[in-house]
């Protein structure tokens, strides 16, 4: 072709001369990119840092107490002589309180989300959705405070208990606290269900309730379960509420009407008194590590489910 006849003399050498001035600019561009990359990696560093710190600070306890008897030991007497480090009561307390919270927040949260998405008209939704999101920001310590001054005396009177600070109280408050989060996330999932799904259902003569039960909920099912899992993850990791209202007894709970000491409460309540570097200190770090693993697994599961959900509904992000 004709371009072959061009003066090939303007090859690499002249090219270099012409663009020498541009060279600095390109170096600068690369520099910016590297700075941003370095800063981005720092978030990775923090996660690794957290894992590393939790590992390092919790390992010493396992040289004193084997992992099995740490996890399944029935007695948590960290300050006795000799101390006992069995965190089964704490784990069970966490499980009880979290399950109790789920009983409150799943029906309320998902029900509210369904109402917002399916029943409420546009105006109602415009007002209620932001309100839910604003209420989701109420600090946990305020919930805890509310639990202490109002719910505790109430439960004590109703069930004539020695103390109103029980697993039930903690479950109720935690559930209430997780409700806006679950509702907001579930509503997001519902809003991703394409309108065409609903129209197809209406077209074959289904009413709104049938459409909701048979089409919308199955379509948004994995999105809703992501919301529930994240709500659970939030409930199990929540500290201040359970610290204030769960009562704090580190024994294996038999009913919901007994005081309990979930893992987070144990860490928050005892870290202040645990001598730094002692067994108790390391044991508390080990509890935090276990807590970290639990929430980590929850988050990964939620991530996997939500990714499938997005693929199913064809949402690219």
């Amino acid at each position: 072709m004709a371009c072959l006849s061009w003066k090939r003399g303007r090859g690499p050498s002249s090219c270099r001369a012409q663009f020498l001035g541009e060279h600095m600019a390109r170096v600068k561009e690369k520099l910016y990119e590297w700075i941003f990359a370095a800063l981005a990696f720092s978030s990775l560093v923090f996660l690794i840092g957290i894992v590393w710190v939790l590992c390092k600070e919790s390992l010493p306890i396992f040289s004193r107490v084997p992992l099995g008897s740490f996890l399944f030991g029935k007695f948590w007497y960290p300050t006795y002589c000799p101390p006992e480090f069995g965190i089964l009561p704490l784990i069970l307390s966490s499980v009880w309180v979290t399950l109790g919270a789920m009983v409150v927040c799943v029906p309320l949260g998902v029900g509210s989300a369904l109402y917002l998405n399916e029943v409420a008209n546009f105006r109602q939704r415009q007002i209620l959705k932001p309100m839910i999101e604003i209420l989701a920001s109420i600090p946990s310590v305020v919930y805890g405070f509310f639990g202490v001054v109002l719910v505790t005396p109430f439960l004590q009177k109703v069930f004539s208990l020695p103390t109103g600070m029980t697993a039930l109280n903690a479950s109720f408050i935690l559930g209430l606290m997780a409700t806006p989060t679950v509702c907001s996330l579930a509503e997001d999932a519902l809003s991703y269900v394409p309108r065409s799904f609903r129209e197809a259902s209406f077209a074959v003569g289904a009413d709104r309730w049938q459409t909701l039960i048979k089409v919308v909920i199955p379509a948004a099912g994995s999105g809703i379960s992501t919301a529930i899992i994240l709500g659970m993850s939030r409930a199990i990791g929540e500290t201040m509420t359970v610290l204030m209202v769960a009562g704090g007894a580190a024994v294996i709970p038999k009913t919901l009407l007994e005081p309990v000491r979930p893992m987070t409460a144990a860490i928050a309540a005892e870290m202040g008194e645990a001598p730094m570097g002692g067994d108790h200190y390391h044991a508390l770090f080990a509890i935090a590590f276990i807590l970290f693993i639990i929430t980590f697994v929850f988050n990964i599961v939620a991530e996997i489910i939500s990714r499938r959900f997005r693929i199913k509904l064809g949402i690219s992000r």
Partner: protein
Amino acid sequence: MDDSMKMCSENVNFFYGRQQALKEINLNILPNKVTAIIGPSGCGKSTFIRLLNRMNELVPHTTLTGRIYLDGQDILMPCVDPVEIRRRVGMVFQKPNPFPKNIFENISYGLEVNSIRNKRFIEERVVESLKKAALWDEVKDRLYDSALNLSGGQQQRLCIARCLAVKPEVLLFDEPCASLDPISTRKVEELILELKKDYTIAIVTHNMQQAARVSDYTGFFLLGELIEFDKTEKIFKAPEDHRTEDYITGRFG
């Protein structure tokens, strides 16, 4: 064909991943002429035009082989800064894409990123570009309004003005009228004919009448290949390849 051509592609192959989008493209773009690239959608015409100012580099997992010359210099060589090439080869896109800034800033932006700081100079250049893009009379009273409030056709002419402000040597149009109404389309076409005096222009279009109206040379792309390239009249009156004829007479596409 002679030495005076402005741009030229030589054995250009382009791949998205493993899929070949362009095969052995050899095409010349002559100075102060309008070169149209036509073909059915998915034939690689937009892909090709984006190579000419190295916009393809923004898409990951692509490979490009061959050479593309601008004034005899291979712009694909690693020592060539794509930023510099894009200053010399401007581009107008399919959908009007003004910045969410006011009209004045939209046009001055190209100058500012090219380190021009002189206020007087910038002002003059903004007015000059708007006039050249035939937009001045419509916007002279509201230069500081948001560009997003303009109509689609005005936005597209604003995008052309924005390009002109940088004083490129070549203007690439990637289906500039695809999202415009007939009246705006006519204005843009008139503008292209006007701009031909000062610029070298390449335009991608799926509208054959448009190619016939504005271009001097036309290339017909099909499935990633350049089937035929010649003077526009020849392509439309007496195409050599039967596939070109089929396309132009509307038998497919």
